């Protein structure tokens, strides 16, 4: 039996998440670390970075160390009417770190639901995202946006592609001042500019947002958002789920609902996901899909109480000491619930609470 206190936050999370996803019928998905390079080249915009570790397989094929899990899961799934494939994973992916510009191994856990999906599946994914966060920390927030609503609002203001791409960037920064300037440059009426600014200033508590939203735009997607919100209000942690339209994942891949999760004490989002029917279409698939990933390596940032020493007891023995006696002493101390390091001299870098000589 593993003692819970010895586990790191990310290790604890892996166990807890696995048990959570299994309860909802998600099956474990184990994959190889390698994938054919071609898969990523065809969908390189979907990846966080287009730099990938490649190598030639024994048969000469160009392979890659996985920079992403979702693409492989899609590739190995099937389109069957009325059916859904629900899987979860816990894998390492290899990406270029934004700060060091070197490759980094990132531990990811997540789930994907691919097939004939509907609002229930989206609700389930959001609920599992919330439950996943709650298993790691009490202080968390999940923010949800609907790209259908964002598109409707933007189309109403101006259909120009350049305008929309710049506007989306400002929306993701909650940057109303530059957005107003952009509207001015594109000679957009004050009324429409004000509407757009009100739209991005609308975030927070779900009921409030829905009320304001209905005055701002007309879109079928608002109904979906309302239904989802009503379903979520009956769930645990409902108060920690907010609406925020600054969550903007790549719109050429994502559509509909997108969401992002934050934990207090971690400086960036630890969970990211949404509906990616557009990506499925790009891969010539008919099914819809929803999923999310949790970046477990970030959990290192969660503060843990600092330890003042590495071991409880430093047990010093001499070469001439009876080793059976030594083993017996070590056993004795461990049975008292202490951690022991048996050494012949005091190691320079070991911090201990108590020194005992055999």
């Amino acid at each position: 039996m593993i003692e819970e206190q010895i586990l790191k936050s990310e290790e604890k999370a892996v166990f807890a998440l696995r048990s959570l996803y299994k309860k909802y019928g998600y099956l474990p998905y184990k994959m190889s670390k390698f994938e054919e390079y071609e898969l990523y080249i065809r969908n390189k915009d979907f990846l966080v970075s287009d730099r990938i570790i490649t190598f030639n397989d024994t048969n000469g094929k160009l392979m890659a160390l996985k920079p992403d899990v979702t693409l492989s899961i899609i590739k190995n799934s099937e389109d069957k009417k009325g059916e859904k494939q629900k899987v979860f994973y816990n894998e390492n992916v290899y990406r270029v770190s934004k700060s060091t510009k070197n490759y980094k191994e990132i531990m990811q856990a997540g789930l994907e639901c691919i097939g004939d999906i509907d609002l229930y599946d989206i609700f389930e994914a959001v609920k599992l995202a919330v439950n996943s966060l709650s298993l790691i920390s009490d202080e968390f927030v999940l923010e949800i946006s609907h790209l259908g609503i964002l598109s409707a609002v933007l189309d109403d203001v101006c259909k120009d592609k350049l305008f929309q791409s710049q506007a989306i960037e400002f929306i993701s920064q909650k940057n109303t001042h530059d957005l107003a300037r952009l509207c001015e440059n594109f000679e957009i009426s004050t009324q429409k500019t004000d509407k757009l600014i009100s739209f991005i200033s609308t975030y927070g508590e779900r009921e409030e947002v829905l009320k304001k939203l209905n005055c701002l735009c007309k879109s079928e997607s608002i109904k979906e958002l309302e239904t989802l919100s009503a379903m979520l209000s009956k769930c645990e942690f409902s108060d920690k789920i907010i609406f925020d339209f600054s969550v903007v994942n790549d719109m050429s891949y994502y559509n509909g609902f997108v969401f992002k999760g934050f934990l207090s004490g971690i400086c960036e989002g630890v969970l990211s996901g949404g509906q990616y029917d557009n990506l499925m279409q790009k891969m010539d698939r008919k099914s819809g899909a929803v999923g999310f990933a949790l970046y477990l390596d970030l959990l290192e940032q969660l503060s843990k109480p600092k330890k003042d020493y590495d071991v409880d007891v430093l047990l010093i023995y001499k070469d001439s000491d009876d080793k059976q006696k030594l083993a017996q002493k070590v056993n004795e101390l461990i049975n008292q619930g202490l951690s022991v390091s048996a050494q012949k001299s005091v190691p320079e870098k070991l911090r201990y609470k108590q020194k005992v000589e055999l």
Partner: protein
Amino acid sequence: MLNVALPKGRLGEKVYAMFEAAGYPCPSIKENTRKLIFENEEKQVRYFWVKPSDVSIYVERGAADIGVAGKDILLEYEPDVYELLDLDLGKCRMAVAGPKNFYDDGEKTLKVATKFTNIAANYYNSIGRDIDIIKLNGSIEIAPILGLSDVIVDIVETGTTLKENDLEVKTDILPISARLIANKSSFKFKGEIIECVLKSIEEQVKKDD
């Protein structure tokens, strides 16, 4: 506790005055010491002075919840933060400047000296001009004089430095001013206090207009 990263220098002092007027004073900051961190336990706020170009790093990495950075820094480093307000302070512009007698006829690769390699690359990319970027860390103005580059991309405030070095603005790239930025995660958990500060500072900016 709200952690605020302020840019060292005159701009930072002006910004602090706005925070003070917003109801978040920290009197010890005005004492002439070499200290860099100042805390007001009662108001639950902590200020620290950092190099202006580092503010966005402190905020992006969550060491500061909010901070004030120039638009030039935000465009150069593209940190993943919220940009909540244009403070209308520290106004200047990012521009291409060169010797008075220089004309870019587009015949050869343009040599551009700059501290802001990302901004320069994005600008010339947007107009489809082939360039060679020379990254410098200071005294950019002398690069065209010594033939190191054809032009420079730099911040222009009054234009005096350019004039003194026989340079002139060729093209304005974009206006620059100080922006209030916030860490995305902090905004979720300390949103109430951040919005409160934001609102008060927004009113002050409007009043100054």
